[in-house]
């Protein structure tokens, strides 16, 4: 009996010590607080704007996420007492959250329509909605053919490849526009996004605009054709395309390094993707008419010579009036930074996006500066 008692006491002490030591060793991994900010990457003039403080919550399109990281970092560096949160919940979730007041600002891969617009107007009150294309990113059509860096493809050919009509890389339709390229007999593997995404929606909008016969599907976030290869997220499709010879996919242009890319046919020319050419298509496309003053929606034109027509246009949403002063000031500050030259350049560096044109900035800035409590 005595033996048991002794042992159990030893046992208890011993295991307590062991667990304690374990907990300590785990907790000792870090006592250091947050880093001192990302020097040299974000905003540099941290002097004046530091009167702001508090927390600002937004959410929406996950396509904006890497740009949003840059904006948040820049804004938080300039205003150390501010924390900006952005939930990458998807465009639909962002629009819903904006409409019911969960998010003070939102990102959406499509302009507001009908129901969402009504809900947002009701939420925003007299100041109305502010909506502008804060994030414009070229979507590259990328392929994996060893030795081939670039191909010229007409819109109809792109649509035929993605709808499965053209199945081999040495197809006549491809060869006709690429006389200098030695095309292999490799079979074409189409890789698309398996998740619900704004990139897919914008790419389909392009296809149905330029090749309505070849692409009769209604553009939406989910790929309409079954039985093709797919992968989760941008990194997923890039990874799948890199591992499969003969693969072709569409993805955010900043991610396609290592793959060949398509110069897209616009009129009689072929335009390779670049942030500048993508910025041009947005700058030269007309503004949608008949909207309120704060809303700057784009009616994308796909056939403007010298511009890159496949772009993801993602909108930033805010209200003209907010119930309390603090939120209004925060949103105003953040949106001003987001639309500013500096903010747009930060996003371009971080996410490869196309900066907002001066014309659009001049058009939306008055509305942003008018954001107030009320």
């Amino acid at each position, binding site marked *: *009996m005595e033996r*048991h008692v002794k*042992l*159990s*006491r*030893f*046992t*208890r002490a*011993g*295991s307590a010590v*062991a*667990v304690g030591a*374990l907990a300590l*060793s*785990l*907790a000792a*991994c*870090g*006592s*250091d*607080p*947050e*880093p001192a*900010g*990302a020097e*040299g*990457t*974000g905003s540099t003039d941290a002097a004046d704007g530091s009167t702001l403080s508090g927390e600002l919550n937004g959410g929406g399109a996950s396509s904006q996420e*890497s740009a949003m*990281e*840059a904006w*948040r*970092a820049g804004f*938080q*560096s300039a205003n150390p007492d501010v*924390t900006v*949160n952005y*939930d*990458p*919940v998807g465009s639909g*979730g962002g629009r819903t*959250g904006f409409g019911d007041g*969960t998010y003070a600002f939102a990102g959406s891969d499509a302009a507001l329509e009908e129901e969402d617009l009504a809900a947002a107007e009701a939420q925003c009150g007299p100041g109305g909605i502010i909506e502008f294309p804060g994030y414009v990113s070229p979507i590259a059509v990328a392929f994996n053919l060893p030795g081939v860096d670039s191909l010229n493809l007409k819109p109809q050919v792109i649509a035929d490849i993605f709808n499965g009509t053209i199945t081999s890389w040495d197809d006549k339709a491809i060869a006709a526009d690429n006389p200098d390229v030695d095309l292999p007999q490799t079979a074409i593997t189409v890789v698309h996004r398996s998740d619900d995404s704004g990139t897919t929606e914008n790419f389909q909008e392009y296809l149905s605009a330029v090749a309505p016969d070849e692409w009769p599907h209604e553009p939406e976030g989910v790929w309409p054709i079954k039985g093709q290869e797919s992968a*989760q*997220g*941008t*990194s*997923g499709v*890039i*990874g799948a395309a890199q591992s499969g010879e003969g693969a072709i996919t569409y993805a955010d242009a*900043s*991610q396609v*390094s290592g793959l060949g890319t398509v110069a897209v046919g616009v009129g009689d020319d072929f335009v390779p993707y670049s942030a500048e050419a993508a910025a041009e298509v947005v700058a030269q496309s007309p503004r949608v008419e008949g909207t309120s003053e704060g809303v700057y929606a784009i009616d994308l034109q796909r056939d403007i010579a010298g511009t890159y027509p496949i772009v993801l246009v993602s909108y930033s949403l805010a209200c003209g009036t907010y119930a309390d002063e603090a939120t209004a000031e925060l949103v105003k500050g953040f949106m001003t930074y987001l639309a500013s030259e500096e903010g747009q350049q930060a996003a*371009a*560096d*971080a*996410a*490869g996006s196309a900066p907002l044109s001066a014309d659009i900035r001049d058009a939306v800035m008055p509305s942003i500066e008018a954001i107030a409590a009320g």
Partner: protein
Amino acid sequence: MTTTTAAASADATELTRALLTAADPRRRRVDRTMRILIWGAFAVAMVPLVSLVWTVLSSGFGRISLDFLTLSMRNIFGGDPSGGIYHAIAGTLVITALATVISVPIGLLTAIYLVEYGRGALARAVTFFVDVMTGIPSIVAGLFAVALFTLILGPGVRIGLIGAVALSVLMIPVVVRSCEEMLKLVPNELREASYALGVPKWLTIVKVVLRTSVAGLTTGILLAVARVIGETAPLLVTVGVTDSINFDPFEGRMMTLPVFAYRQYSQGLATCPGGESATCVPDIAIQNGWGAALVLIVIVLVLNLAGRLVNRWFSPKLR
């Protein structure tokens, strides 16, 4: 005559000996084949283990540094190679600790009920459904937690507590199972002796049964913690993500190591306008992912090892 019989019997002896020692060749072949197959099965299982551990080690080790372990990702974006996983480690530890705090009392008391009090239909039902619960898919546990808190707090709320509840659903049955086994190991003589001294039953359980089995219980709990600390799917749908440090599971989003590893992997390559440099590494996200995976796997292995060692060193040698 005699010689021939002698020769014949010698032959027979030889034959018998040959039969006994060599079996027949077919049986020996089968035996040898099966031996090779069975050793082979073990070798086959070791291939993925070794390959996996080696991959994680070799891909993640280069990223491990003091900064990586003690900084968060706040204000870090693009290809910036500074920043680290402190916020994810903190989130993982807080959420797992909270799940443990929820699970251990319930699990331990249920085990006590099953071993000390349980008989009849209720005990049989509890035993059966605890076993069944160990098979609940982790994503379903996550959905359950989301559904529960959607009814309580409204939609779209993402806090650490929801993740802890989801993990608890996965953890409680594991705790019950292992604690039950440990309590059963406590010899009945100890209980009887305690009763004979007039000690009431509840005190006997607390002072005798639990004390005797504390090492085993610790092991069981550590292994249960190790089981849930790497869960990804339930946290993906419940806790949200953040890049700042948050120690409060009742307010605001939290990052955890498995979710961090997954999200870094899905982020893909970063753009570096000026090409690769000291401040911009294109594949930093995937490096971060492997780094986080390495830290996670080390935590899990340490928990496992600690569990085994606690049991081996501190459990009473009763027999």
